[in-house]
């Protein structure tokens, strides 16, 4: 495994599983990642991934009941790491849940694209889940890939 450096900054967030907190969560993580000097595109990618993971925790993990969602974010080298966890119902078949268009809530018009979006917008995605115990979504994204070529030259 490639060495990616030490953890240089870390933050944790606990919040109620209100749907209004989806915006709070993604904006907070976006603010945290600014120290990596990301592009607008990279910020949007991370905001989308956070929104998907938090929405999953609220509607699937907790099935719209009031509990706490936990986010841990840290920076290691040029990488942003994220962990979004809930102590909800868990996912019986993670592989199935990650298939594009698969949803357990078609009546709610869930598109079944949540994990696909997380996968597409982040560099790495890992899902740990245990029925009855909860779910933890781990993600990693390298920020500023290939940009140093034209940003480090000082005038």
């Amino acid at each position, binding site marked *: 495994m490639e060495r990616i450096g030490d953890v240089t900054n870390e933050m944790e967030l606990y919040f109620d599983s209100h*749907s209004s907190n989806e915006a709070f969560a993604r904006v907070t993580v976006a603010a945290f990642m600014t120290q990596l000097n990301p592009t607008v595109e990279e910020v949007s990618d991370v905001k989308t991934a956070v*929104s998907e993971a938090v*929405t999953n925790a*609220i509607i699937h993990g907790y099935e719209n009941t009031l509990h706490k969602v936990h986010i841990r974010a840290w920076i290691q080298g040029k990488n942003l790491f994220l962990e979004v966890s809930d102590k909800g119902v868990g996912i019986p078949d993670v592989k199935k849940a990650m298939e594009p268009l698969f949803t357990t809530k078609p009546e*709610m*018009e869930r598109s079944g694209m949540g994990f696909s979006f997380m996968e597409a917008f982040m560099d790495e995605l890992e899902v740990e889940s245990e029925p009855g115990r909860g779910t933890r979504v781990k993600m990693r994204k390298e920020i500023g890939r290939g940009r140093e070529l034209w940003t480090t030259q000082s005038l």
Partner: protein
Amino acid sequence: MKYQVQENCLTIFLPEDVDHHNAEEIKREADRLIDREHIRYIIFDFADTGFMDSSGIGVIMGRYKKVYMMGGEVWAVHTSERMRKILTMSGVMKIMQIYEEDK
């Protein structure tokens, strides 16, 4: 929800953020209008929208299902590059056309 009805066409002016939180209201309001005004064409106006996640895709797919039985269509207008990326990735472009204005 900001909207406009012209005959059987409903234009929905989407908010700045389209996520699970405000998708619920858009669905509810849109479905009420579709039934009451006999809507066949739906235009999603993305002029104010900077953020959308897969909940927004659910909104579009759900409204499409409601109007396509009557030969209806769904359209997107004023899409930013980011929105076009999200729409393309989700595969929703198979059912929705994007109206591109002449620059």
